[in-house]
């Protein structure tokens, strides 16, 4: 993505964005509400065309990549029907059906992909459960399975941890690490939760209309970058398995 500018109506939502995402990495985009995170995802997927600048995915246009089904997308919580009357396997099958022609039915390969996707997210035993009765964390896993059933090369997640408790969040992040390592997926994830996501990302971009930082997560957490991105003084405490304070206490 090079020198990309996106205007929506009269608003300049993205300004001079230059980014490079490496394959098989977890790339995090953090920033405040209204900072342009979802717009950036839509631009990457070719849903929005930049006013100026260029976007290329695997050296092709995002639209071509989208048509070839390389993007797996997990929407924000409010974007899908939480109480939808369908079984888990029906929800996962949606992306397979979307790739079929008019009168085509699901083949053995499609069914295997659906089963495998549910196995990958540890939800195979819930295959015949109603989607509406699952917990928030389980629903997120099913939606990841739905994206995986499409056989994507890039997984794009928009605020996936919203509404999850700490245990469900941690379990969800472990799943993302597993998918990156075992399925060689490139994962691009948007969040405003810098504390939690900075522990799993390989690269991070702080976005508030412009990119204020782009690099490894630890180097991002300087008071200057946080102030530029979130617009006020933030004191950031890093707590993960390498937490120095916890080690000293032990």
């Amino acid at each position, binding site marked *: 993505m090079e020198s990309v500018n996106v205007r929506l109506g009269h608003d300049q939502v993205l300004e001079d964005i230059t980014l490079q995402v490496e394959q098989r990495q977890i790339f995090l985009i953090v920033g405040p509400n209204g900072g342009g995170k979802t717009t950036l995802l839509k631009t990457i997927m070719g849903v929005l065309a930049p006013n100026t600048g260029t976007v290329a995915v695997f050296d092709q246009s995002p639209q071509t990549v989208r048509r070839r089904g390389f993007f797996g997308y997990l929407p924000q919580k409010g*974007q*899908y*029907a939480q109480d939808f009357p369908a*079984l888990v396997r029906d929800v996962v099958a*949606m992306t397979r*059906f*979307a790739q079929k022609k008019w009168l085509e039915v699901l083949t053995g390969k499609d069914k295997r992909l659906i089963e495998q996707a549910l196995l990958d997210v540890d939800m195979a035993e819930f295959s015949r459960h109603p989607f509406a009765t699952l917990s928030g964390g389980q629903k997120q896993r099913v939606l990841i399975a739905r994206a995986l059933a499409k056989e994507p090369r890039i997984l794009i997640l928009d605020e996936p941890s919203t509404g999850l408790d700490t245990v469900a969040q941690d379990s969800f992040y472990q799943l993302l690490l597993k998918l990156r390592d075992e399925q060689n997926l490139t994962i691009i994830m948007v969040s405003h939760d810098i504390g939690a996501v900075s522990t799993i990302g390989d690269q991070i971009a702080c976005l508030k209309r412009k990119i204020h930082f782009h690099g490894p997560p630890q180097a991002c957490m300087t008071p200057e970058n946080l102030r530029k991105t979130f617009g006020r003084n933030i004191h950031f405490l890093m707590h993960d398995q390498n937490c120095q304070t916890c080690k000293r206490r032990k």
Partner: protein
Amino acid sequence: MNDLLHFTFFRNALFISIMLSLLYSTLSFFVVLRNMTFLGAGIAHAAFGGVAIGIVLGLPPVYTALVFCVATALIIGRLAQKRVLSYDMGIGIFFAFSMALGAFLIFVKKAYTFDLSGYLFGNILAVKGEDLIVTAVMLVLCAGFIGLFLHRLLFMAFDETNAALSGVPVGVLNGLLMFFLAAVIVLSIKIVGIVLVSALIVLPASFGRLWSHDFRRVLAAGLVYTLCVMVGGLFLSYVINTPSGATIVILGTIVYFAGMGLRAGVGKGARSQAAGATRFNDI
């Protein structure tokens, strides 16, 4: 009851009710799931403007209403899709405009002699053989549409943005859904009436959702409910000599709330049984 079936007008009304039940229960599912229940009321009231245009121009009111409603539904859908107006705003504006247009045209034409009450609340005597043919054609077309695109329509109802990203032709399917909804509403005018038809766009799926979290069962329960309410309401309206539309909608609402009460009772029973089992296990 056998005597009743000897009357051609009643047989026509019965057949059209059965066909409309199939259409209501299917379309209701997508309308309710997509939180577009107000759209049914909006399109139904738009039919009043279409009927008035037919009367003023001396054309068959059902056909002018059909064209007017389809156009209104497509305009509302297009404006919502382009984010010019939300669904609610578009419906609110066109709802009032169409009613006002109808009242205006009837006043200007001084056409007070036509059966206004029949259009507003239904009149089974008005159902003709040609209405059966048009409804049967619409049923075949709608069944084909749902059969071909069921899973894409489900994807769209679940998560429209992602469906579009995955290659589902969201704009075309939305347009077709609006067309069938408008057509079914207009075809229902004679049996249920403009004012009451929106209830039958909401009730079937709402009833079905009381009983299951699986769309197959929601659709099946909605269909059984609609058939019972339409056919039962039709016979009842004849027996107690009341307007068919009003009788069907009152019966449908009573059955819906009875179902809701029964469902709550079943849920409560299951919960207390589970609590009893837990207590027993504790001992």
